[in-house]
């Protein structure tokens, strides 16, 4: 017997999971508190769309702001650290040591400083997303083929032309990958901080309904966050694909694969 194609199996598994989500709770084997049926979750989501929508806006606002900080500061610091040898030798090992610290323990400091409103979420999630952006920007700049810069110089490129026409385009793939990870972490950071202490946002809804054991509403909020993070991932990958068409084969070649940054920079603490 021929085995079905892996992609088919993947879709079947996904369909099976969704079906199980619908059917298993109906059998009453699993109490609704543990797992409310998919249809019920969706119904609750639709019913409470005004509330979910409002809180989603709060979350999106915080995510947007935090991403601006994470990406802006991350790219800036990463460019400095990656581009200037003195700073790199001085700081990069320090940064990668600090990376081991679970950043979430800083959150209580932020709530004490900025209150439980959006500011503390933005600060926390900004820092959460900052590290991968900074580390991949630094890696992207550090791993530029020196031969390319030499070639540009031989053609009379000024230092600014080297930056604009070689360093920036050459580091774009790594920076974009960093932005994707950083963006994902920013979303997580906002949601986690909302779950911990807040008065609005999707994470807040998760926690509030969890406390009153309203399981379907918890799952509805969880579903919403899942969709949000998957959509962001798809969007980021699409942008990456569109921007780095020239790289498709280079990946197998010598451009990136030969010097993939160490897993420390490639894998963020997705909590």
């Amino acid at each position, binding site marked *: 017997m021929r*085995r079905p194609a*892996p992609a088919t*199996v*993947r879709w079947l*598994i996904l369909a099976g999971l969704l079906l199980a989500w619908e059917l298993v709770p109906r059998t009453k084997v699993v109490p609704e*508190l*543990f797992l409310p049926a998919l249809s019920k979750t969706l119904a609750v989501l639709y019913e409470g769309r005004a509330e979910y929508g409002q809180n989603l806006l709060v979350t999106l606002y915080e995510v947007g702001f935090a991403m601006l900080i994470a990406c802006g500061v991350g790219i800036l610091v990463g460019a400095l650290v990656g581009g200037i*040898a*003195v700073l790199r*030798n*001085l700081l990069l090992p*320090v940064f990668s*040591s*600090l*990376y*081991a*610290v*679970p*950043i*979430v*323990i*800083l*959150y*209580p*400091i932020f*709530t*004490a*400083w900025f209150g439980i409103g959006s500011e503390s979420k933005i600060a926390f999630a900004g820092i959460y997303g900052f590290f991968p952006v900074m580390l991949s920007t630094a890696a992207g700049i550090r791993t530029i083929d020196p031969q390319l810069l030499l070639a540009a110089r031989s053609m009379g490129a000024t230092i600014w032309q080297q930056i604009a026409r070689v360093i920036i385009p050459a580091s774009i793939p790594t920076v974009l990958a960093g932005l994707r990870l950083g963006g*994902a972490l920013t*979303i*997580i950071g906002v*949601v*986690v901080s909302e*779950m*911990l*202490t807040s008065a609005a946002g999707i*994470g807040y809804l*998760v*926690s509030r309904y*969890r406390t009153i*054991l309203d*399981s379907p509403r*918890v*799952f509805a909020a*969880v579903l919403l*966050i*899942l969709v949000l*993070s*998957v959509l962001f*991932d798809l969007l980021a990958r699409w942008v990456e694909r569109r921007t780095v068409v020239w790289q498709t084969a280079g990946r197998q070649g010598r451009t990136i694969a030969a010097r993939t940054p*160490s*897993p*420390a920079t490639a*894998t963020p*603490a*997705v*909590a």
Partner: protein
Amino acid sequence: MSRLAIVLARLALFLALIGAWEVLPRLGILNARLLPPLSDVLSMLLQLVGRANVQEAMMVTAAEVVVAFVIAVPLGALIGVAVAESEYFGEIFKPMLFYVFSVPKSIFLPVFILVLGIGFHQKVAYAVFSTLFIVIMSATAAVESVKPEHVLVARSYGATRRQILFRVYVPSMVPILLETLRIAMIFNFTAVMIAEMYASRTGIGHLIANWGENFQMRQLFAGVILLSMVAIFFNETIRWMETKCSSWRT
């Protein structure tokens, strides 16, 4: 810049930070209520370490971290090797794992609470769940890092399966495995912290969250310093072992 100069510069930077943390709040340039001077924080740290309830919390946290780690790493490694070794299942599951990997795990924390209640089991279960995927991915990468040429060369010289395992697979994989342990610990520790801060009756994370809510800034900073030191210490130990083991890599 020579190594010595770098070390000195880093030391100077560190001292400057420490000095600023001590002096700025004392001079009133920064609000001492929001950022207590470092010396206050450190003396609080010494006090805290002596307190029974803090010691108990540390033991609970340590137990959660260790148990979750001991479950997640072998389990993840096993699944990872299985996925890497079977081409068919690899092709089915690898893209899925990638997706699951990029999904935020922390939003499932409430689900763990709904199902398991609040307690040791729930923390460990959640930490295993958070850590498992990164271990699977790294284990897959570790197996794939073994070059088929090397296996072929070993076979052509008549190596047995055992010899191939210990002379080709293990040495090739050790650096990545150590890296996996390191990253897994970061994930694991983060997960336990989140779980404790979110809903818990004990544990260091719980204490930190409480201190934050009650504006006990000295305790809060002392706790943060303590946890950071533990995390960095573990991380650097494994990193040191990594450099020892991977000196043959260029």
